[in-house]
């Protein structure tokens, strides 16, 4: 390569300032050296020079960029209108993302508080015949799964229990974890003091022991280390209070499940051998995968063992299938989909905000073309001007990024409060703007910088370099710029349609949920859990007597119209089931009877919740402990299992050879959630088997919470040791069951309204910008006879055309985005035509309103003045 060409090539590879300030004078010195007789090859000298320049380039480029950045900050300061609009828009976009990400980080990303938590799984049960899933497993199956599996380090049973610790003062409510010995081992819990639960503690007849939770030990027992070895009077799983020796104190912050508090850890007795009735008891089960084993491999093995058990015990295990779920998924549940949806939605808002600011930048660049031309005329190259524009983008994004973090630090607690009822409360307590969130904020800001830098760099017009310093009175808008901004607004409208349609679909789901008839009347019903001390009410007759006196006392309270009790509170996700088999038509040998929903209730429960009686009677005092067993069934059972006949008077098998008479048929209710289809339910009388722990349902003639003091006094009088908790109205229970949909609606609605406002501002800005760029054309048209109305229509048509293009693209996007929403929808499809039509209508109307102002301004232009400036 000739030396002059090499020199040109090397020169062109350097940044402008390095080239001009360093390479050029040094290369001239090299020429002079050769003229004086330098012997070294000139090409070698040039290459060494080039390499040296590159060694120095980074510091030079950085100093250059810092200069540009200083200039950019000065420009932002001098143009407060633009700066305010751009920063506010970006703050909304970036801040919204950071806020939602802070929650996603706390709930979905932050490691669970167990070593190698990704190896931990929860084992769940699915009934293939009904599709009903349960988060727990049958005690009989647990034994076989535990001994036969090889994919897991161990399978450990556990349960949770609200218990009572009797001390010198009032009895204290406490949350207990019932743990098998393996559980604490797979969770890698090392006790702070003493020891953990040992295998011997879970055997039948073992001495009762307890491990204290760290927070419980600190706050309720004063952190006394001498407590280990002493005994506490604690109500156990059978309801009896026994003295338990404290054998250890859990490590600080240990809690399991992750979304609950663990005040106490009690041994969970599990059978060593599978009982004959395998599904007579249920337990939650956690497991840790062996190193190198995937969760899929673990689930495959569980499925294989499930099939073995199905073949060995067809009458009990037909359709029973076990599978593993990552602990995090089991903890977070359906909120994962909602959170990811929120992140997607707020991401769309950010895109819209970016598009809007890009439009603002375009409008601003129109006013700065003269400045750019002057800079180009003074020798600034395309790259230098691009660097300046990039520095301006960086300055803008830095201000917006800082404002966004401030916005997020205010919005995060607000959003946390809003979501606290539907999300993992324990995780939400720790929602903070931590390092991960700050890195995310930096990444989003960087995205904004790159987007604007590209837009700015592409926007440098060729005529900037034509050597003409334009007159501000001769501003025209290039077709390419107009097309670019119109495309941006169309994209913005498309994104807004996606959000509007999403919000519309969730709104429709919510309205569908509100209109769902749960099958009972939740208004004016108070619900609360009560626990009586088991040692005082050991036999059934004592419990029945307590139950009778309790309802008598409750009914004597003024404004109480009905009172009853049940084991399961509707709409709280409970899926307990029982086998259903007609006594007169037993299931063929070797087959498993179908499952139906299980509930234990008193007659007063049906009256209090106004569950209609279709035929027969409710439970009553005549169904007491000594009476023959009876059941009530829901009308779906009658329809399904007694087609064309009355179920009342028929008998069903309820255990080994025992049968119960159906005494009543009641209406179906939504058992687990409002979104569930009404299922077949079978009710067992609590009058027959009264429990010391139950949930009361009390209907009042006025506000239900008003009776709480009287109720408390009445129960105290009955027995001061009765503990009342979870006092709430059925209306609250119903509302909580819709909380996730409500929060999703709230947030999506907020994002959609923001998107709509931004789209309106965007289309307004572009039309104003277009009108400004077409002033000469409009002036000429008016001079040639166009009417103001015609000009308004012309401009409006332009705006509506852009809006229509955006709408069509947005509708296509909505079809795709709707699929992501599917799990949150109820009673509507992701392509609901009415919702899409409404979203389109709202957006087009907004677009027309936003276009009207610049259109009217165009219609009022004075052609003489406009053309005089030409």
């Amino acid at each position, binding site marked *: 390569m000739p030396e002059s060409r090499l020199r040109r090539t090397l020169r062109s590879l350097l940044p402008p300032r390095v080239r001009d300030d*360093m390479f050029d004078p040094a290369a001239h010195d090299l*020429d*002079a050296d050769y*003229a*004086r007789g330098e012997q070294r090859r000139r090409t070698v000298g040039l290459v060494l020079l080039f390499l040296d320049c590159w060694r120095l380039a980074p510091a030079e480029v950085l100093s250059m960029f810092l200069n540009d950045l200083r200039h950019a900050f000065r420009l932002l300061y001098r143009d407060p209108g633009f700066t305010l609009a751009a920063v506010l828009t970006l703050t909304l976009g970036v801040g919204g993302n950071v806020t939602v990400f802070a929650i996603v980080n706390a709930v979905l990303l932050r490691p669970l508080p167990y070593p190698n938590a990704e190896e931990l799984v929860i084992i769940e049960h699915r009934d293939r015949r009904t599709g009903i899933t349960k988060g727990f497993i049958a005690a009989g199956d647990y034994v076989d799964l535990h001994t036969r599996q090889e994919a897991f380090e161990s399978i450990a049973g556990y349960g949770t229990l609200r218990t009572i610790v009797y001390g010198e003062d009032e009895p204290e409510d406490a949350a207990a974890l019932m743990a098998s010995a393996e559980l604490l081992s797979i969770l890698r819990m090392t006790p702070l003091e003493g020891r953990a639960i040992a295998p011997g503690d879970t055997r039948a007849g073992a001495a009762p022991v307890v491990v204290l939770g760290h927070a419980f030990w600190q706050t309720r027992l004063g952190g006394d280390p001498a407590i280990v070895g002493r005994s506490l009077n604690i109500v156990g799983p059978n309801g009896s209070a026994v003295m338990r020796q404290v054998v250890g104190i859990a490590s600080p912050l240990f809690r399991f499940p992750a979304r609950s508090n663990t005040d106490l850890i009690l041994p969970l007795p599990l059978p060593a051998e599978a009982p004959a009735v395998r599904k007579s008891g249920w337990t939650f089960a956690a497991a840790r995968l062996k190193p190198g084993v995937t969760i899929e491999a673990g689930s495959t093995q569980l499925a294989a063992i499930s099939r073995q058990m199905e073949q060995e015990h067809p009458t009990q295990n037909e359709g029973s299938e076990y599978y593993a779920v990552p602990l995090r998924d089991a903890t977070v549940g359906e909120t994962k989909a909602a959170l990811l949806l929120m992140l997607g939605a707020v991401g769309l808002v950010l895109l819209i905000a970016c598009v809007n600011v890009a439009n603002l930048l375009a409008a601003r660049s129109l006013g700065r073309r003269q400045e750019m031309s002057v800079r180009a005329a003074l020798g600034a190259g395309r790259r230098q001007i691009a660097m300046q524009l990039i520095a301006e983008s960086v300055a803008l994004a830095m201000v917006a990024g800082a404002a966004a973090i401030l916005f997020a630090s205010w919005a995060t607690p607000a959003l946390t409060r809003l979501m606290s009822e539907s999300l993992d409360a324990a995780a939400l307590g720790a929602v903070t703007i931590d390092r991960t969130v700050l890195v995310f904020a930096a990444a989003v800001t960087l995205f904004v910088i790159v987007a604007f830098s590209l837009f700015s760099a592409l926007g440098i017009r060729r005529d900037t370099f034509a050597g003409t310093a334009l007159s501000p009175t001769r501003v025209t808008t290039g077709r390419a710029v107009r097309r670019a901004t119109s495309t941006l607004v169309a994209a913005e409208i498309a994104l807004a349609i996606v959000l509007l349609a999403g919000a519309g679909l969730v709104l429709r789901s919510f309205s569908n949920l509100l209109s769902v008839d749960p099958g009972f009347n939740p208004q004016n019903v108070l619900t609360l859990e009560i626990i009586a001390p088991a040692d005082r009410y050991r036999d059934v007759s004592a419990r029945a007597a307590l139950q009778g006196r309790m309802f008598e006392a409750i009914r004597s309270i003024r404004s109480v119209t009905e009172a009853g009790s049940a084991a399961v509170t509707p709409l709280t996700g409970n899926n307990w089931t029982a086998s259903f088999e007609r006594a007169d038509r037993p299931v063929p040998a070797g087959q498993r009877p179908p499952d139906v929903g299980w509930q234990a209730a008193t007659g007063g429960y049906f009256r209090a919740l106004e569950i209609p009686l279709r035929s027969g009677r409710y439970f009553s005092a005549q169904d007491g402990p000594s009476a023959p067993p009876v059941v009530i069934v829901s009308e779906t059972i009658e329809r399904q299992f007694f087609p064309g006949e009355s179920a009342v008077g028929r008998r069903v098998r309820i255990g080994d050879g025992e049968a119960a008479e159906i005494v009543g048929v009641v209406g179906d209710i939504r058992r687990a959630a409002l979104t569930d289809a009404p299922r077949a339910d079978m009710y067992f009388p609590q009058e027959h088997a009264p429990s010391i722990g139950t949930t009361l349902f009390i209907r009042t003639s006025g506000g239900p919470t008003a009776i709480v003091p009287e109720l408390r006094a009445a129960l105290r009088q009955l027995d001061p040791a009765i503990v009342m908790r979870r006092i709430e109205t059925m209306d609250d229970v119903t509302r909580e069951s819709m909380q996730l949909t409500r929060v999703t609606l709230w947030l999506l609605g907020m994002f959609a309204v923001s998107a709509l406002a931004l789209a309106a501002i965007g289309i307004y800005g572009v039309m104003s910008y277009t009108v400004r760029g077409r002033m000469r054309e409009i002036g000429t048209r008016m001079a040639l006879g166009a009417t103001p109305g015609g000009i308004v229509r012309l401009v409006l048509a332009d705006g509506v055309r852009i809006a229509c293009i955006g709408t069509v693209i947005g509708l296509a996007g909505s079809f795709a985005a709707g699929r992501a929403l599917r799990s949150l929808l109820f009673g509507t499809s992701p392509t609901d035509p009415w919702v899409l039509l409404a979203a389109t209508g709202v957006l087009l109307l907004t677009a027309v309103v936003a276009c009207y102002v610049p259109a009217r301004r165009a219609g009022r232009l004075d052609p003489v003045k406009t053309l005089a400036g030409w």
Partner: protein
Amino acid sequence: MRSQRLPRLTHLQFLVLGLLRSGETAGRVVREGLAAHGVKRTAPAFYQLMARLERDGLVDGWYEQITVRDQAVTERRYKLRPQGMKLWTEARDFYAGVAAQGAAARWSDA
């Protein structure tokens, strides 16, 4: 003696501006002058330093064509600007003042 502010020039800048006090000079010559004071800089690093002095308004720089052994070559030449002279004088006075103070202190110790 009234207290003086620290000079705004670095030692290297002080040296370069000092070399330019004698009048307009080729960059190559200034670089040789630095080397004579033990300051070795590659050509690009030296011209980076000079470009910064130019941007700060302390020196003027321009290209000039000269003839070396019958060959026309271009060289970068520099001259001190009034602002550069002012800062160099301030720095020189500062060091002179410090030196005088040090000498007075030595006498009083003796």
